[in-house]
């Protein structure tokens, strides 16, 4: 059913259709609207049988999900930013135990300095946690990816994060087609756990594993993700059959057939990039887009294939490997090893810095002219950066960095661009 609906609400409705049995909720912006809506659905009896548990921390949220999943229940939670870091130990544990928990990450920056706005630092910090990570471009895709995620997680018995840009998607009202319960039931069978805590058949889960077996257990986690590379396109194809929509998959290309320059990105910024690319194409530029939906597992082969016929690529990412540069860019470069392509990285949109079409135009033109340094920081205010660097050169007690920058920037509340 077509609805004009807030992204969080749409995702909550999709989760409800997936019949989760245990939902753990802890408030953190910008995922709060999702669990609030689910809480209401459970309390009103609309979503039943389901246990909605208000936990005392994200660490507990993931721990409760671990217990519920190990006991055979379909478990769901949502988090963002500091919350994801606070639960990090349990995040690794859930995947280590092979528990198919689905978690929405409403992507948000990580402090300090504290910042509630969107970037991808949070889920990318859990890159190696063993969780799969799928990135939604639109709220429609966020809805669809959640439905596919339960299926994928449970078939592989591995957990998944569905990542959607905080505020930009979670708080955006847009048109979303919410499937019917019958459609979702036909796509997503009830949860059949591979391991379950059951007094009728007692098992021990979570034993200590020494050097003699640990590598094999870790390898199998990797093997599962390699299986996911096969399964994700299959599930997307089956999804299309049933729901009549292209959603999910490993990567999505746009105008790359004859493209000399390909822009690579994840999440909602792909929309702004596509609009920019349309405008540049109208002016005769041979430029295209590669969207990465599955960040983990990383589709090396599909990325390589998409890029082989271009001359250069630019990875625009909302994350920063401090001391190195790009995070997604590293994986992309790995994918095109030996292909002789020019590759650039643009760090953009950190902490919710708006990514403007005007800035993208300028950036993409410089990429086309091969006039970019290896790593670019889009719309960075070099004046305040240099001022602070000078301050640190001349004064020992130069004070807190963030507060100095705010002082140099002036009143920020008066700006809205």
């Amino acid at each position, binding site marked *: 059913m077509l609805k004009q609906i807030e992204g969080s609400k749409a995702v909550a409705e999709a989760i409800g259709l997936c019949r989760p049995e245990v939902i753990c909720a802890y408030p953190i912006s910008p995922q709060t609207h999702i669990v609030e809506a689910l809480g209401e659905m459970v309390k009103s009896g609309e979503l039943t049988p389901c246990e909605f548990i208000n936990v*005392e921390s994200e660490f507990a949220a993931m721990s409760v999900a671990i217990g519920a999943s190990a006991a055979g229940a379909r478990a769901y939670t949502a988090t963002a930013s500091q919350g994801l870091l606070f639960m990090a130990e349990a995040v690794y544990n859930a995947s280590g135990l092979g528990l198919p928990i689905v978690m929405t990450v409403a992507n948000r920056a990580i402090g300090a300095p504290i910042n509630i706005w969107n970037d991808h630092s949070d889920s990318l910090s859990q890159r190696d946690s063993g969780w799969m990570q799928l990135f939604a471009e639109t709220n429609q895709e966020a809805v669809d990816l959640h439905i596919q995620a339960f299926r994928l997680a449970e078939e592989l018995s591995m957990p998944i994060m569905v990542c959607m840009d905080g505020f930009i998607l979670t708080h955006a009202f847009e048109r979303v087609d919410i499937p019917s319960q019958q459609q979702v039931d036909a796509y997503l069978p009830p949860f059949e756990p591979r391991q379950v805590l059951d007094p009728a*058949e*007692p098992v021990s*889960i*979570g034993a200590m594993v020494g050097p003699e077996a640990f590598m094999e257990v870790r390898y199998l986690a990797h093997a599962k993700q390699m299986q996911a590379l096969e399964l994700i396109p299959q599930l997307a194809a089956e999804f299309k059959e049933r729901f009549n929509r292209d959603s999910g998959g490993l990567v999505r290309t746009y105008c790359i057939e004859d493209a000399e320059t390909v822009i690579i990105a994840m999440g909602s910024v792909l929309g702004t990039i596509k609009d920019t690319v349309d405008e540049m194409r109208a002016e005769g530029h041979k430029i295209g887009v590669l969207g990465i939906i599955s960040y983990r597992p990383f589709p090396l082969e599909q990325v390589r294939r998409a890029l082989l016929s271009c001359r250069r690529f630019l990875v625009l990412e909302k994350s920063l490997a401090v001391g190195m540069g790009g995070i997604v860019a590293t994986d992309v470069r790995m994918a095109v090893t030996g292909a002789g392509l020019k590759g650039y990285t643009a760090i953009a949109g950190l902490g919710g810095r708006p990514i403007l079409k005007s800035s993208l135009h300028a950036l993409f033109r410089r990429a086309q002219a091969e006039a970019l340094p290896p790593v670019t920081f889009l719309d960075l205010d070099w004046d305040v950066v240099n001022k602070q660097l000078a301050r640190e050169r001349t004064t020992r007690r130069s004070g807190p960095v963030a507060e100095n920058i705010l002082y140099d920037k002036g009143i920020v509340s008066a700006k809205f661009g």
Partner: protein
Amino acid sequence: MGFQPVKFYQTGTFTVGNRLLTPDERSLQSDKGRSNSINSGHRACQGCGEALGARYAIDAAVAGSHGQLIAANATGCLEVFSTPYPESSWQLPWIHSLFGNAAAVATGIAAAMKVKGKTSVRVVAQGGDGGTTDIGFGCLSGMFERNDDVLYICYDNQGYMNTGVQRSSATPPAARTATTMTVGKEPGNVFGQGKNVPEIAMAHGIPYVATATVADLRDLEYKVRKAMTVHGARYIHIFVPCPLGWGTASNDTIRMARLAKESGTFPVFEAEYGEVTGVLKIRHQIPVEDYLRPQKRFAHLFGEHPHPETIARLQLLADRNIRKYGLLNGHAAAADEANEHLRELRISEGGN
């Protein structure tokens, strides 16, 4: 299946077996039909109080749940010695997730049982004092506050023994650990720190809180079985001496637990909804010194340069417990009380 006869020797009123009692008054451990939830062959140290306490408690919980029990375990000695991969001592469904989340994992299991309508399946969470009073405290308090249907059992051996005997918030003042060395002006752990988790549990107003020691088997069993008759959050704090960490003889584990109780150092009581409803009285009061002296972790208080003033301070703490919980004065024998409770309980359980 082979049957190994278990021999019990009558050495006093409180020891295992009580073969002078009528069969229905005997402890579960003396019943060959007990569940043996932690099978033999685990890797605990000789004389491990925690292994003993866990065996007593989980067997009683299994009986109280008619065999329908799932356990969540915090990281620690109990977890490590019971599941050396690929072997497991556990004869019930058991999960270990992390050091600090046993209570939350148990909450998740209980939620799954509820949502699946498996109302007969009960859930127990267990951990050592580190996993309970320190790193798992947030999850524990959350579980209490939500009154989740979980029995949490803490096996308190007063320190981080698994990692090599470091101080926890359950380590007593003056005790030597690897992080409270016996050097400086105030050797050993400092006074005025630590937390009393049974009382904090009571402050949550949960249906049932109790303390017990491995020296009083039937009292321990009674408390676990009573806890299993109640729904909601429950907490049992079991005092389990650690021969390795305390520097005591491995055949002295039960004696050390008894001395802790008889000196007033460890008060044994139970509470419902935040109110103390029963205490196990001291039968033969002993000075705290008698409890401290056999332990190498307190050796610096004795010997060539003794610290009688420190022993006196520890005595004051015990005296405060005795006053606070009314551990003296009563002439009713505590064992008789426990016996009486157990009899009532069995009647209420339908003569099981």
